[in-house]
């Protein structure tokens, strides 16, 4: 491997999706859960995926990992891992990637651990399968992993069942399972949503620490922009199956372009508030992904909507830097935006968004 | 604990065996209510011609010499409760098993005469009132007990004391002194009436002599009923109820030198109640020989080249039996009307499907006793209606004052034992026949109740099977006035002194020719009583594979050739198996 290749591979994304579409056949029609998403995640980088419930965050991460149901799914576009196309691989072919190369942490540690299997075994089986360890070896490693994720008395936990652990501990177990075989790419699908507020920060801290130590890439799905802020390098905002704005974290906060992102920002729940106060403060309902509105999908809820928005779908635009893109005709700061803003302020309908941040 | 009475656990499964089956005690084969036997009728015209007392069951070429050894597997239509000749209700299956383990005092030869077997000789007095019988010397039971006069007397008395088996014995012997010991091997029988054919009474259950030691032990331990001890060519080995009973050869059999060797090492009796299963088993080499009354199987047997079938329809008849002691059938016009209303031909066509023969009387046309003048009426609904109109016109009432007719039709009940699909179909068929002149109430009874009510005379009309005695005179138990009472063997409760006189004469005819005439007269008498509507002759088939030989080579100690089978009852003393 010569130097240029080395350099190239460092800049080459670890995971890349090109115009990925994941549509479900449902009774009502085709549900466009993910509708043309292109993202890149480089080694050691973390990408936050943010959006309201139903915006397609989970489906996107599962599309990348190849965990979609087999029936009733229409898949298009390309998913690459280390430059290789993996989007069309069978489950059997993916087995070598799962666990060892990519791992996933689920939202609800209550339902995501096998209720009838001891914790130790749940960690160990992955080690045995992927790294060929013996049962005793694997258990020893499992104990070490439990220690790594800060579970007290790891040796005892090995023989406990999930229901004997607290929610936070279960999520730590899940992280241990995900970490077990040293994956390069970790998907964390709302890893803290189901947890107590006090535990959420600890878990996120643990995750990013593990990520740093192991030089993993991380895709962190959340609906909480506040969470992403501290732990991600880049953020993709999803709406109705599309990425509507994507930018490095700092840029996104400093130079928000999409009115939707702005709305999200204005409704960030705080870590000191009950976890279930979700993004309910944006008036209106998320778009119907079976029959999406013509034009901008956010239009029915957007304060800055104009005729154009209702008739044409905005293309992906580049903002000030090439790594900042968005889909809006009248982005934050545009003359039309400002004009409308003045009107709204006059009417008193506008809530001071900056104030809540 | 022993309470006298009969309960046949196993045999009750063959319909009607309970009460009537045990009467084989007097060599009277008989059946009960008919729901399974209705399709059991004799060979059709195309079928092998029925022969007297069972056709040869094997076609062993003469040059083949018998070989010893092997186990014969026999398929029986039912299991028995026990094999106690003094108390068990032995129907055909029971008699088949009993015939292997017990020897009868007398047995029928191919000419229908009772010839000595365990008895050495018998001499009647001039008036046939005293019969002096001598037993064979040196005979021992399987348990080593010697055969003596005492054994025979003991057995006779126990049998007579049995409340049900005794029913067919008590009316014919004095209360004391029925059997008198002369010496260890000689005794006198003192029947109440003279009969030239007395020895026929000793051919079946009453003549199957059991070890007196065993009979004594039985009183204390009734389970011993399952382990019979006789003098027969085979002795008890093992038995699992409802599965298999095994007898092995008795190497000390008294008859080996006089009669000939017993070839089989063992016999296994398999009670198989389902006739289809019996067929399947013989085809699958799980049986060597079987008997059946299921005519549906006959064609299958004929079609199988490896099977030999002999069909015998000289036994019982299926008929509708009428209670003549109870209104409305106490009036002969109503009985006759019922016969006329019955579509006998239709019954035959529908339920006999080409097998067997219709019956006009208790004998087939092959029998010397057949009375060609006696025809069973039927298929004449107009004549029936006329008789009913006449009867109902008199506005008859029974003893309790209940009217016997409604809307110009006679009220009656037809009863059968169920549940059985076939029996129900037959009942429907009769209803179609009768409904123009009769208001028929249908009464499906449990088998027990059906038998009980027939025995006690609580019925109008019931399907029945009977009249299979090897010696026609022995069917008298069903006919005589003396057998009407609490439990009546004369089920129709029809008493006719002229008939009783005739029966007496039949027992003592001046010549064989006269006897034939008398029996034909009895046939006429039966017909004229209208107590029975004869439908069909029942058939027994004995079926064996081509490995089975020698069934018909049986001989009596005096060298008389013996029958191979009697109405499904099989004998295996001379049977051998080729490999």
């Amino acid at each position, binding site marked *: 491997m010569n130097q240029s290749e080395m350099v190239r591979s460092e800049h080459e994304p670890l995971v890349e999706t090109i115009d990925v579409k994941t549509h479900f056949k449902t009774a009502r029609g085709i549900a466009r859960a993910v509708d043309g998403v292109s993202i890149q995640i480089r080694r050691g980088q973390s990408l936050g995926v943010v959006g309201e419930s139903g915006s397609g965050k989970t489906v996107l991460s599962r599309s990348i990992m190849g965990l979609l149901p087999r029936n009733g799914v229409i898949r298009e576009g390309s998913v690459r891992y280390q430059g290789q196309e993996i989007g069309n691989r069978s489950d059997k072919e993916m087995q070598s990637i799962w666990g060892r190369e990519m791992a996933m942490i689920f939202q609800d540690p209550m339902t995501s651990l096998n209720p009838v*299997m001891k914790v130790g075994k749940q960690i160990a089986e992955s080690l045995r399968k992927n790294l060929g360890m013996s049962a005793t070896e694997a258990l020893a490693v499992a104990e070490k992993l439990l220690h790594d994720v800060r579970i007290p008395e790891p040796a005892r936990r090995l023989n406990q069942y999930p229901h004997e652990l607290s929610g936070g501990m279960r999520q730590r177990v899940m992280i241990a399972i995900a970490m077990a075989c040293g994956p390069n790419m970790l998907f964390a699908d709302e890893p803290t949503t189901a947890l107590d507020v006090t535990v959420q920060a600890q878990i996120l801290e643990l995750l990013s620490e593990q990520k740093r130590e192991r030089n993993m890439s991380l895709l962190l799905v959340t609906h909480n922009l506040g969470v992403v802020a501290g732990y991600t390098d880049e953020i993709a905002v999803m709406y109705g199956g599309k990425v509507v704005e994507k930018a490095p974290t700092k840029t996104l906060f400093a130079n928000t372009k999409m009115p939707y992102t702005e709305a999200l920002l204005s409704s960030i729940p705080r870590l000191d508030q009950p976890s279930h106060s979700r993004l309910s403060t944006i008036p209106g309902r998320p778009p119907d992904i079976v029959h999406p509105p013509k034009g901008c999908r956010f239009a029915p809820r957007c304060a800055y909507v104009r005729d154009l928005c209702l008739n044409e779908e905005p293309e992906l635009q580049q903002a000030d830097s090439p790594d900042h893109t968005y889909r809006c005709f009248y982005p934050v700061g545009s003359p039309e935006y400002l004009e409308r803003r003045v009107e709204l302020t006059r009417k008193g309908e506008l809530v001071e968004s900056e104030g809540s941040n | 604990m022993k309470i006298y009475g009969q309960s046949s656990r196993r045999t009750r499964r063959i319909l009607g065996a309970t009460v009537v089956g045990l009467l084989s005690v007097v060599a009277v084969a008989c059946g009960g209510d008919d729901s399974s036997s209705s399709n059991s009728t004799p060979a059709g015209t195309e079928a092998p011609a029925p022969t007297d007392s069972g056709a040869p069951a094997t076609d062993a070429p003469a040059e083949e010499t018998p070989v010893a050894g092997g186990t014969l597997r026999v398929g029986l239509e039912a299991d028995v409760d026990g094999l106690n000749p003094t108390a068990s209700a032995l129907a055909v299956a029971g008699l088949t098993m009993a015939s292997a383990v017990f020897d009868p005092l007398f047995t029928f030869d191919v000419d229908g005469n009772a010839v000595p077997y365990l008895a050495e000789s018998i001499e009647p007095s001039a008036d046939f009132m005293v019969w002096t019988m001598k037993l064979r010397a040196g005979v021992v039971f399987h348990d080593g007990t010697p055969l003596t006069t005492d054994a025979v007397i003991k057995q006779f008395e126990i049998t007579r004391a049995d409340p049900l088996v005794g029913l067919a014995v008590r009316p014919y012997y004095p209360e004391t002194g029925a059997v008198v010991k002369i010496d260890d091997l000689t005794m006198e029988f003192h029947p109440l009436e003279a009969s030239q054919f007395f020895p026929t009474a000793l051919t079946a259950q009453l003549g199957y002599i059991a070890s007196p030691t065993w009979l004594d032990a039985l009183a204390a331990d009734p389970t011993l009923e399952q382990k019979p001890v006789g003098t027969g060519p085979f002795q008890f080995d093992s038995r699992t109820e409802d599965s298999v009973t095994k007898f092995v050869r008795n190497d000390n059999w008294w008859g080996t030198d006089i009669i000939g060797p017993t070839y089989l090492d063992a016999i296994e009796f398999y009670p198989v109640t389902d006739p289809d299963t019996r067929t399947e088993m013989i085809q699958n080499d799980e049986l060597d020989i079987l008997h059946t009354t299921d005519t549906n199987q006959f064609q299958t047997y004929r079609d199988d080249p490896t099977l030999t079938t002999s069909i015998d329809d000289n036994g019982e008849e299926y008929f509708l039996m009428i209670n003549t002691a109870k209104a409305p059938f106490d009036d002969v016009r109503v009985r006759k009307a019922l016969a006329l209303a019955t579509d006998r031909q239709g019954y035959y066509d529908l339920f006999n499907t080409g097998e067997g023969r219709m019956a006009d009387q208790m004998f087939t046309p092959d029998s010397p006793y057949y009375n060609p003048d006696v025809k069973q009426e039927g298929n004449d609904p107009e004549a029936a209606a006329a008789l009913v109109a006449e009867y109902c016109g008199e506005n008859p009432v029974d003893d309790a004052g209940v009217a016997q007719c409604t809307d110009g039709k006679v009220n009656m009940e037809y009863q059968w034992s169920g549940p059985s699909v076939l029996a129900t179909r037959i009942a429907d068929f009769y209803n179609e026949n009768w409904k123009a002149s009769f208001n028929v109430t249908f009464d499906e009874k449990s088998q*027990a109740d059906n038998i009980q009510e027939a025995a006690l005379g609580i019925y109008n009309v019931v399907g029945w099977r009977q009249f299979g005695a090897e010696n026609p005179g022995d069917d008298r138990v069903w006919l005589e006035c003396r057998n009407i009472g609490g439990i009546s063997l004369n089920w129709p409760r029809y008493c006719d002194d002229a008939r009783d006189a005739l029966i007496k004469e039949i027992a003592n005819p001046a010549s064989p020719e006269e006897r034939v005439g008398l029996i034909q007269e009895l046939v006429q008498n039966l017909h004229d009583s209208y107590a029975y509507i004869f439908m069909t002759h029942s058939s027994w088939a004995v079926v064996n594979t081509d490995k089975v030989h020698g069934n018909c080579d049986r001989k009596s100690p005096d060298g008389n050739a013996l029958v191979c089978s009697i109405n499904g009852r099989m004998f295996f003393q001379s049977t051998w198996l080729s490999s």
Partner: protein
Amino acid sequence: MRYYVQRVALAILLLLAVSMLTFGALNILGDPLFNILGPVAGDVNNPDSIKMIALAKKEFNLDRALPVRYFIWLSHFVRGDFGVTFSSTGQPPVSGVISERLPRTISLVFLAQMFAIFVSIPWAIIAAARAGKVSDRISTINAFFLVAMPNFAIAVILKFVFSLKLGWTPITYVADDPLSSRLFQLLLPALTIGLPVAAVYQRLLRTDLITTLQQDFILLARTKGLSKTRILFVHALRPSLFSFITVVGLNTGALIGGSIVAETVFRIPGIGSTLVESIFRNDFPVVLAIVMIVASAFVVINLLVDFAYTLIDPRVRR
């Protein structure tokens, strides 16, 4: 512990209720005298018969009031004395009939149950793994076919194919044969009653497996890179077994019911055929004993099922 004491107490109450109902029903529905005495039972004008009837009534306690007879029976029954059959000789004792015949029925039902369990589990797993595909649909049709088929029809077909056409198996059971042959002879009867039950189990387990397979923890197992087989057998099966074992317990009743047919067709002298026979004969002591044994077996098996829950799911263990 307390839970178990309660369960056992409830079971005993249940059995008492069953025994009372059966005892009562039998005595209302039939007249045992005929079974004991034959037609003599109805011969009420004959002094000899009357004497015998009186004697029989005394021997079998038929002259006592129903509740008294029940308690006499119960006090004997709990001591293992099942009484004697209603027959003139009072022979054989019911316990003799039962102890001779029960093992045959138990082996039949046990074999059938084992067959049903070990066939239905892989069958359900394969079907669940291929849910909705052609092979699953075919297996669904087969299962419904088997469930809908009466036992005797299955018996006849099996007999025809395996005994008569192929000649592989004997047609009937012979109680005196050596154990190995008898087990072989029980094959078709066990299939006869086991097949429909296997189909029921398969339907149920397949549905539960499909539900389980949609659980997050199955997805997690997949992300560990585990093989499909391991996921199905190790992760999906155990949590899906709840209704399965419940139904296995409950279906023991169906199997005993089916054994009546199988015992008749294949000539197995077990308690199923004896029960039917005894009902026809009004042989109450035998009927009662068999009903009680079957009911007890049923209750015990379902207690065991409750216990099995705790083995399958640690969460029930407290």
